[in-house]
């Protein structure tokens, strides 16, 4: 069994339910595994939530963890995927002193080249937003940090999988079996 750790994106389709988050986070806590990022959102299916959890662990562990997540009553289905199996994005915001924008033209080039978006500009500060893969956000951060960043915040990862997940089918099957 390999002890090599890897980044895994865990996608959990759940019923909208108070307390389930506590149940799921306990599964990670028991195994001393940190959650790198967590996102909860609506999905293409009404009243179904999708959680995207980024984890650094071994394949042996992630299999067991996803098994235990799937065991929870309100979990419709949980999956784990590697970066290669997903299309993912993260997003971040930089708050920077406005004076820098005019004092050093280089900063404008950095923004342009990175495909970042200027969200707002006012006399004191400006805010830029950048979405992309982890390393793209890291690169921009590195470049801008030379100029001084007032605030930096980064969102959780969101991801869709290359392979189909068939959640609607699971839910339709349930209805069908119940009506039989």
């Amino acid at each position, binding site marked *: *069994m390999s002890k090599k750790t890897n980044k895994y994106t865990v996608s959990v389709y*759940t*019923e909208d339910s*108070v*307390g389930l988050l*506590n*149940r799921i986070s*306990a599964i990670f806590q*028991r195994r001393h595994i940190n959650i790198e990022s967590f996102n909860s959102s609506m999905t293409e299916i009404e009243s179904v939530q999708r959680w995207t959890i980024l984890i650094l662990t071994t394949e042996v562990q992630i*299999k*067991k963890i996803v*098994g*235990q997540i*799937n*065991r929870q*009553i*309100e*979990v*419709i289905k949980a999956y784990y995927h590697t970066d290669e199996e997903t299309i993912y994005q993260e997003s971040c915001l930089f708050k920077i002193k406005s004076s820098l924008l005019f004092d050093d033209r280089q900063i404008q080039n950095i923004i342009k080249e990175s495909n970042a978006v200027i969200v707002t500009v006012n006399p004191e500060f400006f805010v830029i937003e950048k979405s992309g893969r982890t390393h793209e956000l890291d690169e921009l951060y590195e470049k801008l940090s030379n100029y001084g960043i007032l605030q930096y915040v980064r969102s959780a990862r969101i991801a869709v999988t290359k392979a189909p997940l068939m959640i609607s089918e699971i*839910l339709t099957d*349930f*209805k069908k*079996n*119940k009506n039989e």
Partner: protein
Amino acid sequence: MSKISGSEAVIKCLLEEGVDIIYGYPGGAIMPVYDELYKYQDKIQHVLTRHEQGATHSAQGFARISGRVGVAIATSGPGATNLVTGLADAQIDSTPMVCITGQVGSHLLGSDAFQETDIIGISTPITKWNYQITRASEIPEIFAKAFYIAKSGRPGPVLIDITKDAQFEEFNFSYKRINGIRSYKPTPIINMDKIRQAADLINMAKKPLIVWGQGVILGNAEKEFRDLIEKSGIPAAWTILGASAIPTDHSLNVGMLGMHGNYAPNVLTNECDVLIAIGMRFDDRVTGDVNRYAKQAKIIHFEIDPAEVNKNIEVDIPVLGDAKETLSKIIPLIDKKSHKNWLNEFKKLYQIEYDKVIHGELNPSKKGLTMGEVIKEINFQTKGNAAIVSDVGQHQMVACRYANFNKSKSNITSGGLGTMGFALPAAIGAKMASPEREVVAVIGDGGYQMTIQELGTVFQTKAAVKIVVLNNDFLGMVRQWQQLFFDKRYASTEMVNPDFVKIAEGYYLKAKRVTERKDLANAVEEMIKSNEPYFLEVVVEKEGNVFPMIPTGSSVSEIRLS
């Protein structure tokens, strides 16, 4: 339609689910429900335990002997936190139980109100499911879900927390049992390919070994299991929670697995060519060192819970599904065989264990009484028809090793959690669920004193449990480890005990103490013949040890006989 209160709805839900006994303890935040219990006392018996922990273990004992859902009820705050040990025990031992707790009014939630505790947060990791009800109208659906979840698939405990205002609130009640929740798949769909692969492997095996657990009992698969082993001729060994699924004296029953199990099945686990696990989860007390567990064997795992497959031991063929169904499907594919030579290897090793351990334990020539001879006497007097409820420690291992069982659901003990204090309240619950059965609690002097207050419940309910305390004035199992692994430094394991007979008599129970071998048989006979609850203390040798033993970190085949 006339409106009823949330608290009356709680009672009506319990009646709809066929509940006629619940165990509990009243208090402020659950008083409206108790008021309804008073009105419905001809339909539901409420058993007042002396501590909420006792209520949970009684509900567990009730569930374990009957297969029905046990119900416990308590107030908020300390009442709720006292349920925690029983919930954890039921979770790890897959016992169907529904616990109901009162909660402060919903306007006070989160305000550190009197007797408020976040029991939902506290019980989350130790329940199969839990839910906080804040509106009376939620009660019917949540109770229907709770009972369905507790008993379906791999069973487990459910906790329902009800705010006091929801208990008072009135609404139009109607109840509908449920048989499905769209996000919950209690029983995996059976994969016939896996069944066929498993059958091929079993048919080709020269030295197959079956290891079974409580899944056989929880799945009501005792008959199918017996058919399978009898047709295949495969020797079968049990985890302690699997005990009693087939009679102890069955010719293919080769004994108990694990740390204090029998010599043959442990040693031969590392010699079999195919290991067939049925309804068991490869607990570390069963496997010893997992890196040296059955490495030579192909492993088949019959299991209802997909999360258990490949959790502790990598298996070759997982067969997911309810044991009753998967076993029924595989039996027709199994060749009729007998594995005579292979079975003889078990017999040879049994003889070694008998000579070195069992004979001396059951027929001692030394002065002090052994725990084993007490169990042997109970076997004799009950003809193996009793349910044995054991606590945790040396006496538990001895009881499980030597008790004779003729009937399934007869070995009731705290397995996964190892909860001292389990046996006395669990025996009360078991006796009330099956009054026609003989229920004998076998308890050590340590565990007995953890829930000794439940003698009050025995006295008040007149539940005719037979209580046997095997007293060695030690926390014996820990002392044994101190002797073997800590150079006999007996740190805090010697107990200065009270007069247990006087205590039992203080509760007006018949009570007797045996200190000499010559008095044992008569005392056990008198106890078993009694129609009332009966307390028997047997003073056993102080420093007896339980063998065989697999020391922590050792492989199953390194099991020690002394």
